């Protein structure tokens, strides 16, 4: 039993980190109607930015996380302005195709750029809080605790903004009907920029939070990226609620599955495969995902 609880707790913490990445992807999808295939790389960028903030300038690592979110937000705004805006001005013929290729291409570009700029070596960001906390039989690394609380705080703040503020209302309006939103005077370009910026900033924040726990390297974004793709299909494309629940679910399945499902010597090897198998099952049984309503496509 103790063992099960420890595993479940580990899964929960991992799930919270996934949530941060996946919510960003879901937000982008709900407003811009595109999948950001460079999402994992935005996560990686956030990790490196916060690493350099805290090691070069001696900024407190927790503050560096928020600064890196700002930097990745600006990066996202620039990406949106230079590469995605043509989608909404009619300059691009086949929007779906362009959106997939350009975001994937940007991801590959960021990967290679990071490899050249930062080198292939693994780096570790500074600890948020060193040491461990023990409650009874449970021992948890303090970094993981801090990260969990920060992730929860960021998610709650985001939900509050989306549901209670004017900006949130505008975001939802554009996500439901771009033309109608334009008629009531919402500048949809600005909302696009905002949604994309915030979406990738969440991924960047997650990357920065992962730094002290799982270390950072130019290729670190690939797996979180793929997992966030799995999660948004699992939860339903464009559903924030679905993204949160999907993330927690995936975190638990990976943590418990690698122990209980397969024979233990193999579990670890297949750990990163559980998500993909889950995805195949969901697509087979309920293609719209747990909370998705319809197949969405950019028109």
């Amino acid at each position: 039993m103790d063992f099960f609880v420890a595993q479940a707790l580990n899964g929960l913490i991992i799930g919270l980190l996934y949530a941060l990445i996946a919510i960003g992807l879901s937000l982008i999808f709900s407003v811009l109607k595109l999948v950001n295939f460079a999402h994992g790389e935005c996560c990686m960028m956030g990790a490196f930015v916060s690493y350099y903030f805290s090691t070069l300038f001696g900024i407190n690592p927790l503050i560096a996380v928020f600064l890196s979110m700002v930097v990745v937000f600006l990066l996202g705004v620039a990406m949106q302005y230079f590469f995605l805006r043509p989608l909404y001005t009619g300059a691009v013929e086949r929007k779906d195709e362009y959106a997939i290729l350009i975001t994937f291409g940007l991801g590959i570009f960021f990967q290679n750029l990071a490899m050249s700029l930062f080198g292939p070596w693994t780096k570790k960001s500074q600890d948020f809080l060193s040491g461990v906390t023990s409650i009874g039989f449970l021992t948890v690394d303090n970094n993981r605790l801090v990260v969990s609380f920060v992730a929860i705080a960021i998610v709650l703040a985001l939900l509050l903004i989306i549901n209670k503020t004017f900006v949130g209302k505008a975001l939802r309006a554009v996500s439901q009907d771009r033309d109608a939103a334009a008629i009531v005077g919402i500048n949809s370009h600005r909302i696009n920029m905002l949604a994309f910026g915030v979406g990738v900033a969440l991924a960047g924040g997650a990357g920065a939070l992962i730094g002290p726990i799982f270390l950072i390297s130019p290729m670190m974004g690939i797996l979180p990226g793929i997992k966030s793709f799995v999660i948004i299909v699992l939860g339903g494309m464009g559903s924030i609620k679905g993204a949160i629940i999907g993330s927690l679910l995936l975190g638990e399945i990976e943590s418990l599955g690698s122990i209980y499902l397969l024979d233990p010597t193999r579990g670890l090897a297949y750990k990163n495969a559980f998500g993909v198998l889950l995805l195949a099952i969901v697509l087979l049984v309920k293609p719209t995902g747990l909370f998705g309503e319809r197949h969405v496509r950019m028109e």
Partner: protein
Amino acid sequence: MKKNVIGAGIAILIGVAVPLVFRSYWLHVAIIALYYALLASSWTMLAGFSGQFSFATMALGGIGAYTSALLVINVQLPMWLALICGALAATVVGLLIGVLVLRMRGPYLALFTIAFSELVRITLNAEYQLTRGDMGLTVPHLYTTVSKTPYYYTMLGLLVGSLLVMWTVLRSRYGLFFRAIREQEEAAAVMGVNVVRYKIMAFVISSFFAGLAGSFFAHYIGTLTPNSMMEIPRMGLLIAMSVIGGIESLAGAVAGAVLVEFLQEYLRALEMWRFVIFGLALVLILRFSQNGLIYPIYQRFAARRVEPRTVADAEA
């Protein structure tokens, strides 16, 4: 049309002459370039002509490679038979993916295939007792000779044959259906095109050629590892090849693959920066010249007359 045939003829002649000029290592590069050319044209056929974006081309190539290699090693299947089995295995997997995902519209195929590639990579790694995973599977070579020339001509033959098949398919009524689906899926459906069936068909054909390329590669290179064959950045390089060549032309894909492969060998001194350049070229070309770099140049010089064709023409 005539011009195309003459052009293709001259290109093949040059292709045939390559081993006379190139020394051992550059001949190796030429073989790898042709291997990528086959993968890139199979991707182009799928993406450029039927508008389906798959990130699984390298993974399907990997399935072909491992199937063929393992059949030769464990069952002592004759090499040529194994090669075909490899391609067929990729085709079957392609069919399964198609049935699973292509019922849905939107980015599901892209999302699923990127995750699928990872699944294949993980499985091949995890089953190391069979595949030797990251340790590298030593694969029997196709020919006993050390010379690369026979490999080169085999690969050239495979490429030309495959291009011919793809070209024939694309010029047939099926090709028109593919395009119709790409341009306006709803309209195509209304006109009576069984959208899902043709989408799956395009995917399956493309998978076959990816698998074929992969199985040849296995018996040429002699060592397989899942990580280097199907890591995501490698898929990125493949897409860069197709896009630089021109996403709507098979010849463009071939030219793009040859260009990028030779450039990446030639620019070795730049180390990782050469991939930065390819990445940058990829996004800039997508943004500013969606028809690629090579195809528009070709169009300018050749000023091809556009032949109006309809479904009715093709059926006639």
